């Protein structure tokens, strides 16, 4: 989607988009699977505190996520079961793409970024909505952290 201003898109997310769009439809699925496999496990401090994680209701599979702001830098942690590789892939794209950004940079990510990855044909628009919901929740949690700070 050319309407999105590339200059405001953080480098990692822009690169991810270029990578997806450079591929044919079947290979986009494979790349999403690679992201899925790369989703890191939760840090110990969250593994012991499931209460800190928020469930993303809009996703078909159970996915829990938590945004933290440490020394002005954003980190997104997420967990989803192995039986939900698509959801894990979405979470992984965001976890990698948001990591280390400032709060302002995250809040400026266009809400329709997930629709710009060329995944609608590969996984269907309905499923991509799950990723849009995750991005929305990440931003909302971040705003809550900023207000609380």
């Amino acid at each position, binding site marked *: 989607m050319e309407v999105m201003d590339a200059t405001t898109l953080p480098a990692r997310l822009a690169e991810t988009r270029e990578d997806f769009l450079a591929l044919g439809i079947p290979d986009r*699925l*494979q790349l*999403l*699977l690679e992201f*899925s496999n790369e989703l890191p496990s939760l840090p110990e401090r969250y593994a012991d505190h499931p209460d800190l994680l928020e*469930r993303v*209701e*809009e*996703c*078909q*599979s*159970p996915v829990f996520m938590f945004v933290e702001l440490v020394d002005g830098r954003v980190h997104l942690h997420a967990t989803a079961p*192995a*039986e*939900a*590789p*698509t*959801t894990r*892939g979405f979470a992984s794209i965001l976890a990698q793409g948001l990591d280390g950004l400032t709060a302002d940079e995250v809040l400026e990510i266009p809400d329709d970024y997930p629709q710009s990855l060329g995944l609608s*044909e*590969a*996984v*269907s628009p*309905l*499923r991509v*909505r*799950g990723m849009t*919901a995750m991005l929305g929740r990440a931003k909302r949690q971040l705003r809550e952290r900023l207000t609380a700070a």
Partner: protein
Amino acid sequence: MPAEFDSAAKFAEYAHPERLVSTDWLAEHLGQPGLVVVESDEDVLLYETGHIPGAVKIDWHTELNDPVVRDYVSSEQFAALLGSKGIARDSTVVIYGDKNNWWAAYALWVFTLFGHEDVRLLDGGRDLWIAEGRALTTDAPAVTPVEYPVVERDDSAVRAFKEDVLAHFGNPLVDVRSPEEYSGERTTAPAYPEEGALRAGHIPTAASVPWARAAAADGTFKSREELDAIYRGEVGLDDGDDIIAYCRIGERSSHTWFVLSHLLGFENVRNYDGSWTEWGSAVRVPIVTGAERGEIPAR
């Protein structure tokens, strides 16, 4: 030539035992000429993480639905799809998938619209196959494309439209969604995304039987006796009944359609695939909220 039927004692109790195969049967028959194994899951990537050796994938959303019109693929699209998967008109197709074969049953129902004769489900689906420690692979299957004929899709026998449901009052309806959706507390399954129904509740007179009640803890279908107790005993369905099942978009009700048609032998069962996402947004159709079935609406 169809593959031999699974003669398991459990299946012999069902009305159409030829519609199911066990994991034992499939393990023995894998690779047999004329047999094509198809995985169909809710998650579009699950197949890629590991599948039954030789199985091909069919995705309900990107391959069985028309991308523009809310409908299933055309005869030409279906023929091209099946041919590309190495499925011939006389192939024995065994479908399996995640979540108690939820999406596998949906794919089987779509195959039925096109009159594919020999299509069966793997009892217990993907989860049972894995739980039993059977072989999985990430290797892409070697598929030789074949010619699948262009056959007319026949929506009359197993598919119901909104107009059919409006004309159906007085005959049994089965709502297979969650109790929360049935009563009108919510429009989507708990923990599922909003798929755009404007009103909540159920179609008047529909009995509530959440689809997964037909599955045992290991994902296999419950026994004939247990299923009869639910659908004949509890709901009151009778031989000769004209039955319509529905859910939210017609996938969960495909599972119930399979149970009623193939396991219990009801001969007139249709799946209303428009389901709640159509009914709950349609203008001036009757809706009942709460746990009671409600009365037949006045015309």
